[in-house]
């Protein structure tokens, strides 16, 4: 059994669903951005939400980072909050990526746009595979350049019990672009996901 009571089969199934969702998302993104998107197999980890701040404190210690949060909810009790973390060094690359002219939109709008695109394309792909569909709240910037990532994560993850950590690394032909995505999921949604995974496993 892996943490949070996922069996090995359930975990493998989830990894597979996430791989496919990521593939679908990168395919959509490539078409939308008119560039080749190379995507690494995302590594996933299920952890207690309280462990999240420490996990990311180290990685974003010396860099200016921004967190963007977006809530999602679907049928069968699937719900949670997706957080995308960026190093601000990437910000100018993001604007080139989306085809914005300099000064066209604010940095915050740019970040919420790209976060929303990454989050919703990925989660839509995930939902489609489990025959679900999701609604989303508007993306919200949780931190600005001057706040500490771990502190902001502490304030956010406090409300949640579990977290599904998904490391995403996108590379585009002209730009390399990295970010992390964390899916924070409440306890009862984890059991609902397990039920769904079992149903999928039975079908095979």
């Amino acid at each position, binding site marked *: 059994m892996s943490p949070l009571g996922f069996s090995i089969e359930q975990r493998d199934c989830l990894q597979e669903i996430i791989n496919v969702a990521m593939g679908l998302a990168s395919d*959509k*993104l490539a*078409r*939308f951005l008119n560039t080749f998107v190379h995507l690494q197999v995302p590594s996933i980890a299920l952890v207690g939400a309280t462990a999240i701040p420490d996990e990311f404190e180290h990685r974003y210690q010396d860099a200016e980072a921004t967190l963007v949060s977006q809530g999602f909810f679907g049928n069968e009790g699937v719900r949670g909050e997706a957080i995308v973390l960026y190093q601000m060094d990437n910000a100018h690359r993001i604007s080139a990526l989306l*085809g914005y002219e300099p000064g*066209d*939109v*604010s940095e*915050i*709008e740019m970040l*919420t*746009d790209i976060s*929303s*695109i990454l989050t*919703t*394309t990925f989660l*839509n792909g995930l939902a489609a595979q489990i025959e679900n569909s999701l609604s*989303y709240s*508007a*993306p919200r910037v949780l931190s600005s350049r001057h706040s500490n990532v771990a502190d902001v994560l502490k304030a956010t993850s406090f409300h949640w019990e579990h977290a599904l950590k998904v490391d995403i690394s996108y590379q585009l032909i002209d730009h390399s672009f990295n970010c992390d995505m964390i899916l924070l999921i409440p306890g009862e949604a984890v059991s609902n996901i397990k039920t769904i995974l079992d149903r999928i496993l039975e079908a095979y």
Partner: protein
Amino acid sequence: MPHLSLSNPILAQLNSGVLVIDDEYRIRYLNAFVERHANLALSDVIGQSIFNVFKDLPEAWLKRKLMSVLDLQSPAFSSWEQRQYIFKLPHLRPITSSSQYMAQNCTMMPLHTDKTEHQLICILIEDATDAFVYQQHLSRTLVELEKANRQDGLTKVLNRRYWEEQLKQELHRARRYQHSLSLILFDLDKFKDLNDKYGHLGGDFVLVELSSFISSLLRDSDLLGRYGGEEFGIILPETGLQGAVDVAERIRQAVADYPMLFNQQTIRATLSIGVAELDIKQHFLHEDVIRCADMALYNAKRTGRNRVCSFQAGNTEYHKKVN
């Protein structure tokens, strides 16, 4: 089905705007909220381009958003915090709000129906004017709070805590860029006598009057703060000892020649002034520079008041405070 027949009355009553367009930006539907706020009728605008009906739309920006909705089949969002509104509509609080148009949160969603061959997008418009107004109040309050946090309540020059913070930063900067930095400390002569003669209101009046007068004699980059009671400090960035002594002398002279009218009485005041320059080999903390300027100030007091003394390294002839 009975619940379907509920959709229309709900949409008509909904306190949010609902607008449906197709992939050629033609209006397919809008609810009563949009009709009333924009003062138009669905029957007049149906089939027309949204950009013809709403002339003020940010066309290029909106088209890019809508394209992402269709291409990615995922929602796009716009927040009033980044863009106050997309649709230029009046709001319902014209009197209590400082903004003329409705602040909006908009969501653009792909709409799935099997009745049409065109792809549809639903645009949801939520009135965020309340949040916008609160945010404006908050920003104003924060600006005032920040000001209050660094001002001395009586004299409106920098308070001691903030002034010392600035001194630390200036010291750091002077050290890093090898710039000179000088400090002036001055004290009102015989302030106690002044209080006795004119009362505390008179004493306060002199402090306020002189603070504003001395501020007017300084460069923008000089930082005047109230160090305590009747003692003040001036940070002079990029200024050597001689330059600072010149400034101090000019202030001393100007104050001595400055009559202040209080309750039909003319009050005159003089200053004792101590000047010190940062010595990066000797001074490690901001307190070290303050201590040197303070010693020079005591020297100015001891040798007769209404004068400027500067701190000379190696000179140990500085004495304890006299009034």
